[in-house]
């Protein structure tokens, strides 16, 4: 049944702030976002928080709850001991705007630099044919709701701001994997993936997979296979030698180098 939740929320902006204690009445079956909403409607009307669907489908309400990156709308209060306070803080890896809202533009900037899907030339609309088994791997990665929890938890940029420049993060590694495994794509983006987006910086410690609310096996199904594919073309003379004579796949052409923003008009 209902009880009074002790809620500690980080409030402030880039110039300073701290954890503020509140007591919020909560009901059975509620999630952290419900408590935050009640707090906003009754005690802290200007509490900044980002949310949209409240059903775990849009990936807006990412925050750190008791130090763990989570979606507030999918974190049930029954997970916690009612006697202990629940601490909610903004994502640590990104600049704070205010309270629980952070500036996630890093991710949108990186998104612009991944060469987009490029179908074969001359394939008319409605003539695309793909087998279900061939699209399934990429479909897993397209489940991504862009909550950026994986980006937030990844120590490569969480603990090393300077790496942000050469590292795209797990969210974009699954984007690369999605495109590289797409049965109809025609580009080879492995150079960009390795040289510009820092696949090699990942030391596969798997926190991205641990926090993914969609249960995408980011490390096992995307990052490691992509590392292996980079090895195929880059570090493994044997595979390269064999492939010169017999390749099971259609060769792809290298993705064009970027000059500013590329238009991908077809």
């Amino acid at each position, binding site marked *: 049944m209902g009880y009074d939740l002790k809620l500690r929320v980080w409030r402030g902006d880039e110039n300073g702030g701290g954890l503020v204690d509140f007591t919020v009445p909560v009901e059975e079956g509620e999630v952290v976002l419900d408590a935050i909403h009640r707090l906003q409607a009754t005690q802290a*009307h*200007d509490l900044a928080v*980002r949310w949209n669907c409240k*059903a775990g*489908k*849009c990936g807006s309400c990412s925050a750190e709850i008791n130090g763990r990156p989570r979606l507030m709308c999918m974190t049930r209060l029954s997970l916690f001991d009612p006697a202990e306070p629940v601490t909610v803080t903004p994502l640590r890896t990104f600049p704070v705007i205010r309270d629980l809202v952070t500036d996630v533009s890093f991710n949108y900037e990186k998104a612009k630099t991944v060469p987009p899907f490029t179908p074969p030339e001359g394939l008319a609309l*409605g003539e695309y044919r*793909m087998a*279900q088994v061939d699209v399934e791997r990429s479909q897993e990665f397209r*489940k991504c709701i862009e909550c950026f929890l994986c980006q937030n938890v990844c120590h490569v940029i969480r603990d090393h701001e300077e790496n942000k420049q050469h590292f795209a993060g797990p969210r974009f590694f699954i984007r690369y994997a999605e495109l590289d495994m797409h049965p109809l794509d025609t580009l080879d983006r492995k150079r960009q993936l390795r040289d510009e987006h820092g696949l090699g910086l990942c030391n596969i410690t798997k926190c991205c997979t641990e926090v993914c609310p969609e249960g995408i096996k980011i490390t096992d199904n995307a990052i490691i296979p992509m590392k292996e594919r980079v090895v195929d073309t880059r570090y493994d003379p044997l595979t390269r030698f064999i492939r010169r004579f017999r390749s099971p796949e259609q060769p792809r052409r290298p993705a064009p180098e970027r000059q500013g923003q590329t238009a991908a008009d077809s």
Partner: protein
Amino acid sequence: MSEIERHSYDVVVVGAGGAGLRAAIAAHDAGARTAIVCKSLLGKAHTVMAEGGIAAAMGNVWPEDNWQVHFRDTMRGGKMLNNWRMAQLHAQEAPERVWELESWGALFDRTPDGKISQRDFGGHRYARLAHVGDRTGLEMIRTLQQRAVALGIDVFMECTITRLLKDGDRIAGAFGYWRESGRFIVFEAPSVVLATGGIGKSFKVTSNSWEYTGDGHAMAMLAGAPLINMEFVQFHPTGMLWPPSVRGILVTESVRGDGGVLRNAEGRRFMFDYISDYFKAETADTEEEADRWYDDHINNRRPPELLPRDEVARAINAEVKAGRGTPHGGVYLDIASRRSPEFIKKRLPSMYHQFKELADVDITKEPMEIAPTCHYVMGGVEVDADSAMSKVPGLFAAGEVAGGMHGANRLGGNSLSDLLVFGKRAGEYAAAHAAGLAVRPRIDEADVAQAEAEALAPFARDGGENPYSLHRDLQETMHNLVGIIRVAEEMERALERIAEYRERLEKVSVEGNRQYNPGWHLALDLRNMLIVSESIARAALERKESRGGHTRDDYPSTDPEWGKRNVCCRWDGDHVTVYQQPLPEMPDELKKLFEEH
């Protein structure tokens, strides 16, 4: 006063859901300098919530399907009140719009021969919905988002438009604020495309997110563009019910399309008791026939669970009223006893998750408890069918904010295809409109100053009511008095209250500063919600019959005379006025489609 940030574009698209993104892509492709402005982050728009699929008569699963059948289904689902031309264009162009997505990287589920797989949905004669499990909306928005990014279209994220600006009778631009900083921004543009979605946040139980405050509807009205069909609000029959914190969250219709059935507390499949004469000929009347239908559409009629949404929502409502509801006041949706756990997890993965994580219910083992939830508004800005332009030159509308396409009730799956078909049209015609102007319209600085003063007003008041309590009262009123079942007296009472709320809004004050202040943002959105709520209540009071998403206890039957008329709403300076206008008449060759069956 601080300097206001200004931008100049040919086409400004307000909203970054399916319709907005598709419009922006089309406008860009037509050579227009295009901007997208959206309230949330890119890719978070409500389209992401769409689960079932995109209706398009591609004929991949049933070769018998074609645009005429789709057109007929859409019109019948809309109780013949649709704008026939929109329904026609929609049915004809949807397949190409879906294939386009595929060429931009979308990965739909496949048929054995490698084509896009299609699934069954309520009101569609054939399996017609292109889908990806039960997350089709996500696939669609991500595909469009990635396409827009690849094209380099400018996106203004977390930026809210509060006013459309005009030069004489034409659109000249838009005024808004950055949510992050509270700084104002002016877009100067001869064409503005509204793609702001719906109005669900005026109701208490809704599947809609906070963004759905009817901004586009209200701004169009304020700019002089009338709305049409506002009395038709769709209550999705299956929303989550328990625990209270999840009330209203959508349970996709695919659950029924894939074999789920509705039962009351006594365990009876009650939908067999609610087959209206209108659908008798095509609906199974025994459980045996209904169950055979999933595998053999040709020799069997469809199960009554797959009747259009308005019929199902009303039936659930009636069962609960008759005392045959569940403990929390809904009915059961059961797929556990009918399909294997593997099948359910494969076809409905996010439903499985949603119930598991939010309600502790394993849908492969137990039935779901559901009740209707406010889902979609059929009404919207009255637009020209071909160009999507409203009555205000330069103002376009596409998607949920546009009215007419779905008539009195929308079929599941027709929304996503609507976004694509009319999004593209709106973008194209908006670009053409901008290119065709000899002189660019100019913004009147007095209008900008007025918009600025309006936006800052809540800060100027001290110690007034907070916007959250006003919002809660409005939702309560709309839910109780203008909900699924309506009567004149209640709606009149709602109108009185809405008038009071408008006075209360004048006194609302907000605390804090202008940096990312949700209280302030809500105070500004309330203006739109009140205008929309008034429109719904007035239009609903005007239409003295029951049809589709509009059910009146005092006029329970459908009246053929009302089938020839649309109710329209106009802003008269300080209140909403309604008037009637004749429905455009369908040409004879299309009329024939309805005689053949």
